[in-house]
C-alpha cells in the first residue's frame, strides 16, 4: 500500500460526517486502500502515470479563510455554493432554493434520495477516484428537482483550493432530475497560486429522468500544483437530454472521467470539451458513452492544444450494446501540438454489437495549417501573431457553440490570457457584436 492509500484509510476513519454517511465513507476508504494501484499496464491508465500520486501525502480537508476579490467568476444570476478545500463555506454562498441542499443539511426525504442514488453510478468498487472521494464523504450537494419543475437559476458550484498544506479536498454532487425536470449546473475549480498542491477529488452523479434536461459546465481552471481526480457519471432516461461542456487548462495532473449511459430510448448526449495544457502539465480525459437501448444519439467533440512539454490524453469510448439499434453516435477529437516536445495520446474506441447503427469517429493530430498562416501573413500579420490567432480560432469554434452566453463571456478573457491575445481586441469584438 502506498503513502496515499494508507493516508486515505486513516482519513476515512477520523473525519466527522453525518452518521448516515459513515458506512459509505468507510467503504470508500477500504476500497481505495485495497485497490491494486494502476500501472501503465492498466488499460485505463496506459498513458498517464499515477506513480507520483501513490506517494503523495495529504492532510485532512480544512477550511481556509479566503477572500475572492480577484477571482474571476461567471457573471450569471445563479445560486452559488462555495467550497474551500472541499469544505462548504456558508459565508461565501447564497441562500439555497428548496431543491438544493448540502448533505449535512438534508431533510429525511432528501437523505432517502441520496441513499438511493449516491455511489450507484460512481461505483467505488470499479472507479478508483470514486472510491477516493467516497472515502472522505462529508460534504456534498444534492440537487433534486421534482417532476415537471425547472430550477429558476443555474446552480454554481465553486471549488477553491487554498493554503500552504496539500489536503484531500473532496466534493461530491448528486443531481436527480425527475420526469420532465430541468436544471443547469456550473462547476468551477480554482486554486490559490502555483504552489497550492491539493488533491481534488470531485465526483458528480447525474440521474436524468424521462424527458428531463440537464446542462452541465465543468471548468478546471486550477493552477500548476493541483492534482485533480474528477468524474462525471450520468444516466439518461427516455427522451432525456444531457448537454455538457468541459474545459481544462492543466496542472500536475487533471484526470476527468465521463461515463454516460443511455437507459431509455430517444435520449441525446451532447458533450464538448477543450483542453489546453502547457509547461509540464498533464490533462487526461476518458469518456465512455454506453448505448444500452435503441434510438439514442450522442455527439462528442473534444479539441486540445498542447504546448511546451505538456501532455494530453483523450480516450473516447462508445459502446453500442446489442439492443441499441438505430443508434446515432459521433465522436471527434482534434489536437494541435504547438511544440515538438508536446505529446498527445488520442484513442477513439468504438465497440458495436448492434447491426443497424450509424457511427462516426475521428481523431487528428496536426500542426497549424500553412495555407492559412500564409494568408494571414500576406495581410501583414506576423507569423507569431498569426499562429496565436489560429490556435485561438481552433478553440474558439467550440467555445462559440457553448449555449450559455454568460459562460462564453467568462471564458473569453481566460482564453485570451492563455493565448496572449490583446484585451483591446476582445473589447472591440464585444462592442462590435453588440452594434451589429
Amino acid at each position, binding site marked *: 500500500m502506498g503513502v496515499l492509500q494508507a493516508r486515505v484509510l486513516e482519513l476515512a476513519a477520523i473525519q466527522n460526517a453525518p452518521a448516515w454517511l459513515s458506512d459509505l465513507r468507510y467503504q470508500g476508504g477500504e476500497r481505495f486502500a485495497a485497490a491494486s494501484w494502476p500501472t501503465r499496464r492498466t488499460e485505463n491508465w496506459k498513458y498517464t502515470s499515477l506513480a507520483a500520486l501513490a506517494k503523495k501525502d495529504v492532510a485532512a480537508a480544512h477550511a481556509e479563510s479566503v477572500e475572492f476579490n480577484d477571482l474571476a467568476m461567471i457573471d450569471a444570476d445563479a445560486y452559488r455554493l462555495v467550497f474551500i478545500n472541499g469544505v462548504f463555506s456558508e459565508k461565501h454562498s447564497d441562500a439555497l432554493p428548496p431543491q438544493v441542499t448540502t448533505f449535512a443539511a438534508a431533510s429525511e426525504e432528501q437523505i432517502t434520495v441520496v441513499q438511493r442514488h449516491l455511489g450507484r453510478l460512481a461505483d467505488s468498487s470499479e472507479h478508483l477516484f470514486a472510491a477516493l472521494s467516497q472515502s472522505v464523504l462529508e460534504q456534498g450537494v444534492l440537487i433534486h428537482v421534482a417532476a415537471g419543475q425547472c430550477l429558476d437559476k443555474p446552480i454554481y458550484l465553486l471549488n477553491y483550493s487554498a493554503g500552504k498544506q496539500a489536503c484531500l479536498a473532496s466534493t461530491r454532487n448528486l443531481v436527480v432530475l425527475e420526469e420532465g425536470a430541468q436544471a443547469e449546473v456550473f462547476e468551477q475549480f480554482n486554486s490559490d497560486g502555483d504552489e497550492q498542491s491539493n488533491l481534488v477529488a470531485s465526483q458528480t452523479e447525474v440521474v436524468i429522468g424521462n424527458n428531463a434536461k440537464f446542462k452541465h459546465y465543468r471548468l478546471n481552471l486550477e493552477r500548476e500544483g493541483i492534482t485533480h481526480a474528477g468524474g462525471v457519471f450520468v444516466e439518461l432516461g427516455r427522451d432525456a437530454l444531457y448537454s455538457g461542456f468541459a474545459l481544462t487548462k492543466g496542472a500536475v495532473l487533471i484526470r476527468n472521467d465521463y461515463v454516460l449511459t443511455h437507459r431509455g430510448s430517444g435520449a441525446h448526449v451532447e458533450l464538448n470539451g477543450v483542453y489546453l495544457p502547457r509547461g509540464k502539465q498533464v490533462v487526461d480525459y476518458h469518456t465512455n458513452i454506453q448505448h444500452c437501448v435503441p434510438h439514442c444519439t450522442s455527439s462528442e467533440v473534444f479539441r486540445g492544444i498542447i504546448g511546451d512539454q505538456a501532455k494530453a490524453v483523450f480516450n473516447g469510448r462508445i459502446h453500442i450494446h446489442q439492443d441499441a439499434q438505430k443508434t446515432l453516435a459521433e465522436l471527434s477529437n482534434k489536437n494541435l501540438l504547438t511544440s515538438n516536445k508536446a505529446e498527445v495520446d488520442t484513442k477513439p474506441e468504438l465497440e458495436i454489437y448492434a447491426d443497424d447503427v450509424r457511427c462516426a469517429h475521428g481523431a487528428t493530430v496536426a500542426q497549424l*495549417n*500553412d*495555407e*492559412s498562416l*500564409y*494568408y*494571414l*501573413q*500576406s*495581410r*501583414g*500579420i*506576423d*507569423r507569431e*501573431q498569426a499562429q496565436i*490567432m*489560429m490556435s*485561438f*480560432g*481552433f*478553440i*474558439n*469554434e467550440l467555445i*462559440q457553440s457553448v449555449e450559455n452566453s454568460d459562460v462564453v463571456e467568462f471564458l473569453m478573457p481566460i482564453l485570451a490570457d492563455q493565448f496572449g491575445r490583446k484585451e*483591446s*481586441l476582445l*473589447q*472591440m*469584438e464585444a*462592442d*462590435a*457584436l453588440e*452594434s*451589429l
Partner: protein
Amino acid sequence: MLRIENLCARVEEKEILKGLNLHVKPGEVHAIMGPNGAGKSTLGSVLAGREAFEVTAGSVAFQGKDLLDLDVEARAHLGLFLAFQYPVEIPGVSNMEFLKSSVDAVRKARGKSDLSSVEFMKLAREASKKVKLDQAFLKRGVNEGFSGGEKKRNEILQMMLLEPSLCILDETDSGLDIDALQTVADGVNAMRSPDRSFVVVTHYQRLLDYIVPDYVHVLAGGKIVKSGDKSLAKELEAKGYSWLDGEVA
C-alpha cells in the same frame, strides 16, 4: 513601383516561370492574360512570398527594395497586396479580428498609430457597404461558409482597408456572376489613383471591360510573349491563344 527582371521560379521540381520581365509604374493598370498553366497564378504567389515557390533566377524590385528578400508580412507592410484566387477559410477567427489585426499591423509598419475600435468599425462598415457585403459577415469566421462571390468581395474589402500601393488580383473574376463582377470592378476602380498600381491576372477578357487596363501582357510558357494596349485583350478574345504559339516557341 515594380520591376521584375528575368524572373525564374519553380514549385517542387517543375520550372514554371522562365525569365519573366515586367515593369509597372505608379498609377498603371497592367493586365496579364494567358492560357491555363502559363504561370499566371505562380507570378502572384512568388510576388506575395509563398513558401512553396522557389525563385531560381532574376530579381524583383518593389518600391526600390529587393522584394524577394522580404518576409511575407514585410511585403504587405511595404504596400503589396495579393487578392487570392482561392481565399482561405479560417473558422473560429472572426473576420473582424482578422481585419483589425491586419490593418493594425500594416499601419504600425508604416509608422501610423492604431485605429480605435470605433474608428475601425466605421471604416469596416463603409468598406463592406461599398463591396455590398452584409455587415453580418464581419462577425463570421474568416471566409467561413462564404460563397465564391462573397470571398472575392471580402478580398476587395481587405484591399480597401489596407490601402496598398500595388494590388495584384489573381483571377478575381473566376466564379463571379455579372453583378458580383461589377461590384468588384467598382471597388477596384474607386481605388485607382496616380500612385496606386494594379496587376490584374485573368483568363478572360470579360473583367477588362470593367477594369480597363493601360497595358495587356500575354503570359505563356513562363514568360511574357506579347505586350500591347487594351486592344490586345480583344484580339485574344477573338482569336484565342493559339495564334501566339509561334512566339511561345
